[in-house]
């Protein structure tokens, strides 16, 4: 089975610019997650989708971050405008349902804001 696909792998932008990340989950996986991993920290949940609906976005900085999952498949995460502290790896993960905790992560997008 194909894994979780993410692009781009790397992105360097200047502060105040905007950036978007794309994720294609494993086919048939209803639940999709975006995590942020800052260097030296563990991943932290930003947003969770169940099909195309948002389940949890309590830790998403909504003044600058947005995410959507149209048609319940692919998802995009956007940052506008970016800040220096947004430098991190953005990980997408998917699972069959909410209770399948051993879910599959993509390789991530490493964002550097300069």
């Amino acid at each position: 089975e194909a894994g979780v696909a993410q692009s781009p792998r790397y992105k360097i932008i200047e502060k105040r610019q905007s950036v978007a990340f794309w994720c294609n989950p494993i086919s048939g996986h209803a639940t999709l997650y975006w995590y942020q991993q800052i260097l030296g920290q563990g991943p932290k949940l930003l947003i969770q989708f169940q099909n195309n609906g948002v389940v949890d976005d309590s830790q998403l900085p909504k003044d600058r971050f947005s995410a959507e999952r149209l048609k319940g498949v692919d998802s995009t995460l956007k940052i506008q405008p970016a800040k220096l502290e947004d430098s991190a790896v953005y990980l997408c993960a998917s699972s069959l349902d909410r209770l399948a905790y051993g879910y599959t992560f993509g390789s991530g997008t490493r964002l550097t804001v300069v």
Partner: protein
Amino acid sequence: DQQVKQNSPSLSVQEGRISILNCDYTNSMFDYFLWYKKYPAEGPTFLISISSIKDKNEDGRFTVFLNKSAKHLSLHIVPSQPGDSAVYFCAAPGGGSQGNLIFGKGTKLSVKP
């Protein structure tokens, strides 16, 4: 406030010996725990889990032990192999939604040939 703590940033062991990675948690409501393994430039990969109704779960060379009274779990790798060199994260379901995982900061394991 960290609910899942991995206090050792790094661990170095010799090939063939036992690796023991530790994890502490503060929330007594946690009832399920997972370990993930992460290689550089890759996403974390699920390794092994344990439910709070058990105190041990084994999968090949990997065994996780849970001590609920101490709010402590550990991952044992026996025997350690160079390919086990990676960052290991302890995690527990928590937060406002089902599916959300709270991760520790990770322990970098280096297995020397």
